[in-house]
C-alpha cells in the first residue's frame, strides 16, 4: 500500500482552497457585461393566470427583457421532463402534466415561477419584477396528501392474531445545501455555442435534458460546467426551470445569472409520506408478512426523478434486513399545490426504513420481546437472498453489526442508566434501527425494465502524462464529498504514485466524457469501480510498454509499488520511465499504439446493499437526527409554506446534535471490482427510527410524530397521562 493509498489517513486535497476562501463556486463566476435574472414567483398555491402584463416592467431602468411562458412557447422551448416512467397497477402510465420552465395558464404552488426579468443589476431586475401586473384568479388549493386522495399477503395476515399496526407520517424536509442553487449562462454568437455554469450534481444529464428535451441548443453546442458546488443532497440533481432560462443565455446575447435566494420555494423538497403499515408475526415472533399503504406527496409537478422515489426506491426496501415471506405495498402518489418533492438524501430508503424499524420495535413491545432479539430472530442469514420486493441481497452479516452496536452502546448497562436518570426525574429510552439500503442504483438493464429513462453506469478515463502524473476524468461529481482525495487515493494505491501527482477532473462536459453524476451513494461503488476498470486497462498497457523497455516477455512483467520488473531478471523500470516511453513510442508498430490513456464505462451487476446499525458518515447522522427532532416543512390549508425561512424551519446546528460513536463491520460487496458499498446516505436513513424508537421507549407511548420537538413530546405525555415536570 502506498503511503497515500486506500485506507491511508490523508488530508483532503480540496479542503485547502475551500478553507482559505479560494473555492470557485458558480456565484464567483463573473462574465464581462453580465446581466442578472430575477424570477417572479406565484404568491398563490393555486391560481389561474388570467393575464400577465410586462409592458411597465420592460421599460424600467436597466431592463434588457422580460420573458413569460408565452415567450418560451413561441420559441418552441420544450418542457421539463421526468426521467422515470411509472405505470399504475392497471397498467396505465402515470399522469403527468406539462411543466414549462415558466408557468403558463396557471400556477400550482407558492413559488412557481411565471416570469423572469433580465436586467443590468439584480436590484433593477427586482424593481422591474414588482411592476409586472398579473391578474390571478385564485383557485382552491390542496396541501395535504391524505386529503388529496383517499387494499397473497392478506392470507398471511388472516392466519395470526399478532399484527402490529402503525400510522406513520414521514415529514416533509427542505434540503438546504449550504450553497444555494445558482446558474449563469453565456452565449457566443460567433460560434453559436452556449455555456451554462450550474450547481448541478450531474452536468452531463443536465446537458442532455436541456439539449434534447427542452431543445435549448444542440448537445454539441452546449457546455455545462459544474464548478465547486457546496452540497447537494439530491436537490441539485434535477433540472429546474431557472436553469432552462439560464441555458438560453439571453436574447440580448449577454450572460445572465441568478442565484437562488428563495431555496425554500424553489428547490425540490423531500419525503412527505403518509403510511398505514401492518406487520404480522407468528406466535414466536417470526415475521409472516408486511403490508403498507402509502400516500406520497409529489408536489405540484413531476420533477426529474420524482416518480421513482416513492415507488421503486421505496417499496423495494421494505424487507429490511429480515426474512419476510410476504410483502405488499401500495402507493398513491398524489399531486398537491406544494413545491415538487423529489430525491433527498436517502430518496425513498429513509421512508422504507422508518416503516420497517418502527414496526419491529412496536411489535417487540406488543409481544413483550426484546427488540434486539426480535430482530436477530428474523435476520436473513443465507445469501444471495431474494426478497419479495424485487431486490436480491448479495451479501450481509446483520448479526455482526447488531452485536457490535450493542457493545458500543453498552446495552447491558442500560437498565442501570435508566434507573439513575429516574432518580433525577428524567425519562430514559433506547431505540434500535437495523437499516439496509440499495446504493449505486444499477444495473442499467434492470432499472430500464422498471421504467427508468436513463442507464445508471458511470464513466472514467485515466490519462497518464508523459511525466508520469495522472489525470482522472470522472463522470462522478463531487460537491463536498471529497472525491478529489478518495479517487486520487485509489489511483495512488494502484499505480504506486503519491496523490499529489493525481488530479481529478470532473464537472465539465467539454472535458469529461458522459457520466451520470453523483447521487444514490454511487460514486464509490460505481464511479470508483469505473476508475478501477480503467486502471486495470492502464496497467495492462503499461506492462506492454515495460516489456519493451526491459526486453522481456509481456507475460513476465510484474507491477508492484510503482515499479515494473521482469520475473527472473535484475532490471526494473519505474512508473515515470514507462509513462515517458509510452509517448516517445519508439516501439510503435502494428502491435502497440503510442500513448497511455484508457477509459471505462462501468455498469454494475447489482445494487450494493450496505447495512448496519449505525451509519458511517457524521453529516448523514446530522440529517438523520434533524428529521426526527427538529426539521419539518409545514404548509397551511391554503398551500402557504409556513416554514418559509430558517426563522421557522429548524436547520440542525452542531449544538443540536448528540455526540456519536461510529464503527463498522465489513462484508465485501461481490458485485463490483472494489467490493465497496455506498455510504453517503446511511446516517440519514438509519437514524430517524432509532431516535423515535428511543423517545417512545422513554415516554411509554407510540403516539409521537416527527419532528419530536419538546412540545410534541410534552403533548404526547399529556395525552398518555404521564405528566412530567419536564418542559
Amino acid at each position, binding site marked *: 500500500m502506498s503511503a497515500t493509498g486506500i485506507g491511508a489517513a490523508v488530508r483532503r486535497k480540496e479542503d485547502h482552497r475551500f478553507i482559505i476562501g479560494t473555492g470557485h463556486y458558480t456565484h464567483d463566476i463573473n462574465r464581462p457585461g453580465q446581466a442578472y435574472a430575477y424570477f417572479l414567483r406565484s404568491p398563490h398555491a393555486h391560481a389561474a393566470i388570467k393575464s400577465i402584463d410586462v409592458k411597465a416592467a420592460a421599460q424600467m431602468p436597466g431592463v434588457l427583457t422580460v420573458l413569460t411562458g408565452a415567450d418560451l412557447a413561441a420559441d418552441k422551448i420544450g418542457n421539463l421532463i421526468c426521467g422515470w416512467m411509472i405505470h399504475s397497477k392497471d397498467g396505465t402510465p402515470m399522469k403527468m402534466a406539462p411543466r414549462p420552465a415558466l408557468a403558463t395558464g396557471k400556477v400550482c404552488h407558492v413559488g412557481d415561477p411565471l416570469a423572469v426579468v433580465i436586467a443590468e443589476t439584480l436590484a433593477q431586475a427586482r424593481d422591474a419584477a414588482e411592476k409586472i401586473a398579473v391578474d390571478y384568479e385564485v383557485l382552491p388549493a390542496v396541501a395535504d396528501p391524505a386529503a388529496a386522495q383517499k387494499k397473497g399477503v392478506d392470507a398471511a395476515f388472516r392466519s395470526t392474531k399478532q399484527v402490529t399496526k402503525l400510522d406513520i407520517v414521514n415529514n416533509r424536509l427542505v434540503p438546504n445545501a449550504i450553497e444555494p442553487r445558482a446558474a449563469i449562462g453565456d452565449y457566443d454568437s460567433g460560434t453559436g455555442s452556449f455555456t451554462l455554469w450550474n450547481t448541478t450534481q450531474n452536468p452531463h444529464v443536465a446537458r442532455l435534458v436541456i439539449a434534447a428535451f427542452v431543445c435549448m441548443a444542440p448537445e454539441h453546442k452546449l457546455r455545462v460546467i459544474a464548478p465547486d458546488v457546496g452540497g447537494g443532497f439530491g436537490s441539485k440533481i434535477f433540472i429546474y426551470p431557472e436553469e432552462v432560462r439560464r441555458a438560453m443565455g439571453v436574447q440580448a446575447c449577454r450572460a445572465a445569472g441568478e442565484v437562488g435566494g428563495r431555496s425554500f420555494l424553489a428547490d425540490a423538497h423531500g419525503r412527505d409520506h403518509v403510511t398505514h403499515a401492518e406487520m404480522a408475526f407468528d406466535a414466536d415472533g417470526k415475521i409472516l408478512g408486511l403490508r403498507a399503504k402509502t400516500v406520497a406527496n409529489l408536489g405540484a409537478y413531476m420533477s426529474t426523478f420524482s416518480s421513482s422515489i416513492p415507488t421503486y426506491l421505496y417499496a423495494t426496501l421494505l424487507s429490511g434486513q429480515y426474512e419476510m415471506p410476504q410483502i405488499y405495498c401500495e402507493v398513491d402518489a398524489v399531486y398537491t399545490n406544494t413545491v415538487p418533492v423529489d430525491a433527498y438524501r436517502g430518496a425513498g430508503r429513509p421512508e422504507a426504513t422508518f416503516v420497517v424499524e418502527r414496526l419491529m420495535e412496536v411489535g417487540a413491545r406488543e409481544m413483550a420481546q426484546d427488540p434486539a432479539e426480535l430482530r436477530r430472530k428474523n435476520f436473513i442469514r443465507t445469501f444471495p437472498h431474494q426478497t419479495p420486493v424485487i431486490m436480491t441481497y448479495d451479501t450481509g452479516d446483520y448479526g455482526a453489526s447488531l452485536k457490535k452496536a450493542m457493545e458500543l452502546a453498552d446495552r447491558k448497562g442500560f437498565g442501570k442508566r435508566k434507573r439513575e436518570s429516574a432518580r433525577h426525574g428524567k425519562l430514559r429510552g433506547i431505540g434500535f434501527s437495523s437499516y439496509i439500503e440499495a446504493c449505486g442504483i444499477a444495473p442499467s438493464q434492470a432499472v430500464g425494465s422498471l421504467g427508468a429513462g436513463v442507464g445508471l453506469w458511470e464513466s472514467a478515463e485515466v490519462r497518464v502524462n508523459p511525466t508520469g502524473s495522472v489525470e482522472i476524468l470522472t463522470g462522478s461529481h463531487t460537491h463536498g464529498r471529497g472525491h478529489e482525495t478518495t479517487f486520487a487515493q485509489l489511483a495512488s494505491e494502484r499505480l504506486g504514485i503519491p496523490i499529489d501527482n493525481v488530479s481529478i477532473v470532473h464537472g465539465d462536459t467539454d472535458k469529461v466524457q458522459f457520466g451520470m453524476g453523483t447521487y444514490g451513494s454511487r460514486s464509490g461503488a460505481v464511479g470508483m469501480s469505473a476508475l478501477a476498470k480503467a486502471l486495470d486497462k492502464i496497467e495492462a498497457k503499461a506492462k506492454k510498454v515495460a516489456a519493451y523497455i526491459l526486453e522481456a516477455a509481456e507475460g513476465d512483467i510484474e507491477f508492484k509499488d510503482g515499479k515494473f520488473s521482469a520475473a527472473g531478471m535484475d532490471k526494473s523500470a519505474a512508473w515515470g520511465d514507462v509513462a515517458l516511453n509510452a509517448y516517445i513510442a519508439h516501439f510503435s508498430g502494428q502491435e502497440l499504439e503510442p500513448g497511455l490513456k484508457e477509459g471505462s464505462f462501468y455498469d454494475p451487476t447489482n445494487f450494493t446493499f450496505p447495512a448496519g446499525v449505525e451509519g458511517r458518515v457524521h453529516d448523514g447522522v446530522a440529517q438523520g437526527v434533524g428529521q426526527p427532532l*427538529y426539521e419539518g416543512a409545514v404548509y397551511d390549508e391554503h398551500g402557504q409554506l409556513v416554514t418559509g425561512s430558517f426563522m421557522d424551519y429548524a436547520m440542525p446546528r452542531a449544538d443540536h446534535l448528540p455526540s456519536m460513536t461510529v464503527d463498522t463491520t465489513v462484508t465485501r460487496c461481490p458485485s463490483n471490482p472494489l467490493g465497496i458499498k455506498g455510504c453517503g446516505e446511511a446516517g440519514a436513513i438509519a437514524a430517524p427510527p432509532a431516535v423515535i424508537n428511543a423517545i417512545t421507549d422513554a415516554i411509554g407511548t407510540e403516539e409521537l410524530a416527527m419532528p419530536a*420537538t419538546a412540545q410534541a413530546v410534552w403533548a404526547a405525555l399529556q395525552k398518555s397521562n404521564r405528566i412530567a415536570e419536564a*418542559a
Partner: protein
Amino acid sequence: MYAFTFHRPQTVRQAASLLAKHEDAKLLAGGQTLLPTMKLRLAGPPQIIDMSLIEGLSGIEQSGRSLTIGAMTRHSDVNTSPVVQQAIPVLAQLAGMIGDPAVRHMGTIGGSIANNDPNADYPAACLGLGATIITNKRRIKADDFFTGMFSTALEPAEIITKVSFPIPKKAAYQKFRNQASRFALVGVFVSKRGGDIRVAVTGAGSNGVFRVSSFEQALKKRFSPKSLEGMTIPADGMNSDIHGSAEYRAHLVGVLARRAVADAIGKPIA
C-alpha cells in the same frame, strides 16, 4: 432593498431633528432587525438615520446601586464587560445568549427595547429588573415603557440614550429557545431586591412582555421554587403558532419560572 437616503448625525439633537423632519424615517442602531427586513423588501424607509457616529451613546457604568448601559452598547460588550459580570451577572449571560456572535457584535440594547419584539430577551430583563429607560426627553419606568407587541411608550422623535438597571440581590433568566430562530419561545426573568420581587415573561404573551403578579405574590412569602409549585398561568392571551401552542407556552412559563428562581438562589435544578 429599496433606495434610501442615509443620514449620519453627530449628536442626539441632530438625530432627533431629522426624525422630526422626516415622518417616515427610521433610526438605525445595530440593524439586526431593520436591515434583514429591508433586504426582504418588507420595509422600505426612504430615510435612515444612523446612530453609530453619535458620541456618548455607548458605555457601561456602575454607580452606587445602579448599572447604566448606553443605548448603542453592543450585546457582545455587555456580555464580556467585567462591570456587568460583577454587578448583574445574569445580564451579561442574557446578552451572550442573543442571536449568534455576528448578531451580538452589531445588535444594541437600545435597538432591542425600542423594537420590543415579543420574543426578544432585553424587554424581559428591563421589566424583570425594574429598569428605567432614559431618552432625550424624559425617564420612563420599564413598567410604563412596554405597551404591546412591537410597541413602546416612545413618542415621535424620542430617542433612547441609556438604560439604567437597579442592582438586584438575586436574579436569573431562563430562556427556552425556538429551535429554528433561536429566539425565546418563552423566557422568564426573575429578580429580588429587598421586598421588590419581579417575574417578567417574554415570548409567551400575545401582547408582548408581561409580569406575572400571581407568581410575584407567591414568591414574596418565600423566594424559592417551592413557592411556585403547582402554579400555572392561563393559556388565554398566550401566543400560539407551530412552535408552541398557547397551552404549551403557559406550561413553560411555570417550568421556567421555577428553574429561574432555583438559579437565582444558587440551587439550580439539574
